[in-house]
């Protein structure tokens, strides 16, 4: 018995021994579609078999010719299913092969040389186009959002397309006390009932505000639902997953781009507590994806396309904040999975082009890029680090609590009946927001204007309530404001701001994640800015009324301007944003690009670091990772460390109680066996072995490629009306399938063979069963694998997929392993 088995094995190994040696020689070509069969085997049987059919038209019909996949690639082989992960290794090697071919051909003719130069240049041209398109779209979004936000309050008679500020731009009749009023701008109360003051006018204004807000949000959610359901939400969690190798068809498409642009303006204008930075990243990535179709190099290769999408994400943040460097760092830190150095330079170029385009469209006048660009340079004192660190702690605590509350609310929306009424939910939240926001001056205006007002220190002629300080020395001729006690209006502003803070903290939990485009940056910055400004004014009054305390005596002499509440607002905004998103470097760089000075780097860094440490102590993940986990995307976190002592054989499938591994043998299957295997199982790939007894690995074949090849080449599934792609007839259900290099000639009476070696991956990754899981996880992360085969003593034992690893990690962390939905 043993001898027989051994003999069998040795016979098999002898036969396949030659093919093994041949495999070693052509090891480089994994998916070589060019024909490797140019040397026909000089078998006597073959020639005699050929000659036997030489008479008659059979040879001409080619009924005994070998079915060869390798003369032309079948379209569709090499593409991926929706909601599946790409194979990074295959894509990268495809690109290297293409590049090698172009380089080798470029020496032949001038045309080929030009082709190779244009191929190298195409990346830069693509970046230029992405920057231009995103900058133009962002400018359009800004102008439209400003106009529609003011539409809730009134209309300009000079030209309905002007918002409040631009309507009163040329008016000579603005005085200091009433700088916002001009005769061309009419509020709704003025238009409808003719009065500007009084209770009735207030009620009419209130009603019109709420009605416009409801109209805008209803239009937004209906357009999203009718045309592009993928346009809702922020977009950054899904883009993170796409950049790590996941495919979501249609997420970065044309309709999604158009609907996201239009409904973003509507959602922002309706007064909801959301921002447009996250959706702008989605818009820029859509532009990047759409423009990739112009260039073959990027259209056909998923890995190269993801490099372009990383750069597009940088462009999105750059146009949102006017911060190109911050945008590149955001893409590097938060969004991208693999970020090669070449992408760094190209992203920077694209971000600069976009910022330049936005500046030339000039949406705000004054060539400013962002609404809250501040320009003060007053110094800060070392003792102020204590309140800054307090702000950091506040930001961290708020961030962690916000993430928990928002995830609980989103889970509620996902599982209970709340999720069945998306339109109604949006309308109710808008109504609540509008009704509660109108009475308070600080929430009635758009959030960007609120942040701008809080960031700016009180200037010479600030008419806002926050700057109503009692001018003790009114006769002083210097231009600086002295240290001042607060007037009555400042106290009013303080409690109004506190109410606004509580309102914003609560309503943002419910708003983020609704079925309209919604971003998170601006609401978090608003919460932080309000908290910071409150603390700043508090510190300022403390310093004024108790300037003889030892801590103030050294630096805050009476009459000197020692505390800038605007700086506290900025630091608070940075702390809260860092607590929610867990950004570090990119946050500090964005904030200092907003302020234009390096003086405030130390306070910003202190607050950002404190906020991140406190938030990490309370909850491990940022908001985007939490949403990825909520949706069950197959995202292998690159920052976490795997610290358990399990081995590969604990994670691999099949487990002990499962049926054995479904494999394909290299030369003993027929078409109907393979079809049966495909219809019975739902695995996305099958290993190919030499034989069931030896279980020696030949390669790996993907399910999609197998299906497409069989359908393309066998007439059984072809519809009768078509003649295209009809290469060979003669393939029937009993045709044998070969994955080997050289196939034996078929006997005369049996059907033609189907050779599928071209679709097989000849170099699948393997680990042994005693490999520690830390190393396996590292391999998956670094190479971007989708599956890995496990061998024992050289024989194939099982398979580990990315989904298995994610489930294992979830199990180790005592989470529900069934929450991983995709593979």
């Amino acid at each position: 018995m043993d001898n027989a088995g051994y003999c069998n094995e040795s016979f098999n190994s002898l036969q396949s021994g030659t093919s093994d040696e041949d495999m070693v020689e052509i090891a480089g070509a994994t998916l070589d579609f060019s024909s490797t069969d140019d040397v026909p085997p000089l078998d006597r049987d073959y020639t005699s078999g050929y000659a036997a059919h030489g008479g008659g038209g059979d040879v001409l019909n080619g009924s005994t010719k070998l079915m060869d996949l390798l003369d032309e690639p079948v379209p569709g082989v090499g593409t991926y299913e929706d909601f599946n992960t790409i194979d990074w290794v295959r894509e990268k090697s495809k690109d290297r092969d293409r590049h090698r071919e172009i380089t080798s051909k470029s020496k032949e003719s001038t045309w080929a040389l030009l082709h190779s130069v244009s191929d190298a240049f195409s990346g830069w041209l693509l970046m230029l186009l992405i920057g231009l398109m995103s900058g133009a779209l962002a400018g359009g979004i800004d102008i439209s959002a400003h106009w529609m936000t003011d539409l809730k309050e009134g209309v300009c008679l000079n030209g309905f397309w002007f918002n409040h500020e631009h309507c009163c731009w040329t008016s000579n009749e603005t005085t200091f006390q009433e700088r916002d009023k001009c005769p061309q701008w009419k509020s709704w109360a003025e238009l409808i009932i003719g009065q500007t003051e009084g209770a009735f006018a207030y009620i009419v204004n209130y009603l019109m505000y709420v009605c416009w807000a409801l109209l805008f949000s209803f239009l937004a959610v209906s357009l999203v639902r009718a045309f592009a359901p993928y346009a809702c939400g922020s977009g950054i969690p899904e883009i993170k997953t796409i950049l790590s190798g996941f495919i979501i068809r249609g997420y970065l498409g044309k309709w999604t781009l158009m609907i996201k642009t239009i409904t973003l303006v509507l959602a922002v204008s309706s007064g909801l507590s959301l921002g447009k930075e996250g959706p702008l990243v989605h818009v820029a990535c859509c532009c990047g994806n759409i423009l990739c179709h112009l260039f073959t190099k990027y259209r056909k290769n998923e890995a190269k396309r993801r490099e372009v999408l990383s750069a597009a994400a940088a462009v999105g943040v750059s146009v949102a904040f006017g911060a190109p460097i911050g945008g590149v760092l955001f893409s590097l830190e938060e969004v991208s999975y693999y970020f090669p150095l070449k992408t760094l330079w190209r992203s920077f170029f694209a971000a600069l082009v976009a910022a330049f385009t936005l500046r030339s469209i000039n949406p705000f006048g004054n060539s400013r890029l962002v609404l809250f660009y501040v320009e003060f340079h007053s110094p800060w004192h070392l003792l102020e680090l204590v309140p800054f660190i307090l702000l950091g702690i506040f930001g961290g605590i708020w961030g962690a609590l916000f993430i928990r509350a928002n995830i609980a609310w989103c889970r509620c929306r996902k599982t209970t009946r709340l999720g069945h009424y998306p339109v109604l939910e949006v309308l109710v939240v808008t109504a609540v927001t509008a009704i509660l926001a109108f009475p308070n001056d600080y929430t009635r205006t758009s959030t960007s204007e609120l942040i701008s007002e809080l960031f700016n220190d009180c200037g010479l002629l600030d008419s806002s309530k926050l700057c109503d300080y009692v001018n003790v020395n009114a006769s002083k001729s210097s231009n600086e404001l002295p240290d001042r006690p607060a007037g009555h209006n400042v106290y009013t502003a303080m409690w109004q701001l506190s109410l606004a803070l509580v309102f914003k903290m609560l309503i943002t939990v419910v708003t983020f994640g609704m079925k309209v485009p919604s971003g998170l940056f601006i609401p978090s910055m608003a919460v932080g800015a309000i908290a910071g400004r409150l603390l700043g004014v508090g510190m300022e009054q403390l310093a004024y009324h108790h300037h003889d305390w030892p801590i103030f005596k050294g630096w805050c002499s009476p009459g000197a301007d020692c505390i800038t509440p605007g700086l506290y607002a900025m630091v608070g905004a940075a702390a809260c944003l860092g607590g929610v998103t867990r950004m570090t470097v990119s946050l500090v760089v964005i904030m200092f690009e907003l302020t234009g000075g390096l003086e405030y780097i130390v306070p910003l860094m202190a607050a950002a670091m404190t906020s991140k440490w406190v938030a990490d102590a309370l909850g491990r993940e940022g908001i985007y990772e939490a949403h990825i986990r909520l949706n069950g995307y197959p995202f292998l976190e690159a920052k976490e460390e795997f610290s358990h002592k399990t081995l590969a054989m604990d994670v691999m499938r099949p487990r002990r109680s499962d049926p054995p591994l479904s494999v394909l043998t290299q030369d003993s299957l027929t078409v109907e066996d393979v079809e049966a295997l495909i219809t019975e199982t739902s695995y996305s790939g099958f290993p190919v072995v030499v034989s069931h007894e030896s279980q020696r690995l030949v390669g790996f074949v993907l399910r999609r490629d197998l299906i497409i090849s069989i359908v393309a080449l066998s007439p059984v599934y072809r519809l009768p009306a078509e003649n295209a792609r009809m290469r060979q007839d003669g393939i029937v259900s009993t045709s044998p399938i070969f994955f080997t290099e050289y196939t034996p000639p078929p006997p005369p009476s049996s059907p033609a063979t189907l050779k599928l070696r071209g679709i097989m991956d000849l170099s699948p990754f393997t680990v042994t069963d005693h490999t520690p899981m830390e190393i396996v996880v590292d391999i998956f992360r670094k190479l971007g694998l989708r599956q890995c085969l496990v061998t024992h003593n050289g024989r194939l034992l099982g398979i580990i997929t990315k989904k298995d690893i994610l489930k294992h990690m979830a199990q180790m962390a005592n989470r529900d392993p069934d929450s991983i939905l995709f593979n």
Partner: protein
Amino acid sequence: MSRFEFSLHLFSSVCFLLLLSIQTTNAKSSEDIRCKCICPPYKDVLGQIYNQNVSLKDCNCLHVVEPMPVEGKDVEAYCLRCECKYEERSSGTIKVTIIIYLSILGLLLLYMVYLTLLEPVLKRRLFGHSQLIQSDDDVGDQQPFANAHDVLSRSRSRSNMLNKVEHAQQRWKRQVQEQRKSVFDRHVVLS
């Protein structure tokens, strides 16, 4: 998406870009520039803001502040406290952007009304009840081999332009329905 639709979208976005760039390179009308001087309170004079449509070289206190509220010898002291800033904007860009945005929004709303309300009514009138029963949902069945036809059929050429548009529209509607199912109904993506 078919090439036709793609090129149409690209063409419209290029038009949008061109329009924007044309607007920004037009000569500035006199309405689009101004000099804004902010003068704080001085002695008995209240604070005031002055706007004038002057160019950059005339943007200072002496040209803009009219009528000057103080006497001859105080003018210099008053003007030293004033801050004058030159600003410009492009009203043409704003007008074009708002009009384009409103027209796209209007078109989308009309198309949405047509798709949800009018098209089923029209189809029922033209084709009778039998056509309405045949739905496109059967194509997305579980048979793995039938789906492969979708992938292979992309490479076939269509002879008729109208057929192509109709086919593309059917495919798009199916895609949107799939998306709607996964986002709104099953809450699988984007919860």
